[in-house]
């Protein structure tokens, strides 16, 4: 019973998150401006992180926690670099 509920919930969550990922990707592909793409990528990162957590819950193990943690702690670096590039024309000055 509880397994069925959870299985459904997790499957739903996976589909929802992957759809969210796809939507973010659509924005990334579509643009129209460079900042839109970066925003899309950043959103994809977070969605992927949540997906990792949900997959981990489905598997019942914590092996993907590190992946999620790395996104949480370091995922922003890409975005920050990209944004700084847009803002200043170079990443490190």
């Amino acid at each position, binding site marked *: 019973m509880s397994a069925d509920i959870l299985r459904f919930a997790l499957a739903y969550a996976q589909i929802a998150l992957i759809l969210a990922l796809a939507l973010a990707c659509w924005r990334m592909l579509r643009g129209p401006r460079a900042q839109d793409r970066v925003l899309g990528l950043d959103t994809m990162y977070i969605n992927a992180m949540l997906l990792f957590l949900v997959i981990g819950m*489905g*598997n*019942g*193990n914590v*092996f993907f926690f590190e992946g999620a943690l790395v996104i949480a702690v370091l995922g922003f670096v890409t975005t920050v670099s990209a944004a700084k590039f847009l803002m200043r024309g170079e990443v490190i000055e």
Partner: protein
Amino acid sequence: MEIILALAIGVLVGSGVWLMLRPRSYQVIVGLCLLAYGVNLFIFAMGRLYIGAAPIMPKGGFVDPTAYADPLPQSLVLTAIVISFATTALFLVVMIAARGATGTDHVDGKERGRDE
């Protein structure tokens, strides 16, 4: 699952090859990165696909190896990731150095049809 991953590898490799054959060094570097993704997935696929069976073992005991993902391709991919990162960095630097030295970002250091 298998067919999706195979198609994914195909798309990555196809895009990578197309870019690798382009004339701008930046295209080539993006192509090499995409190719690296595709090849890494390919190596990974050689261990066959397992879901929910990460090769992290219980402490000791007899285990059934068919119930876990093959760890060896994973370790090969890890090495390959690192090496492709290194070579990407190198190629990048050579690319910008070439642009500085030749004035163009064409892979041959000169625009097509223009002699030195």
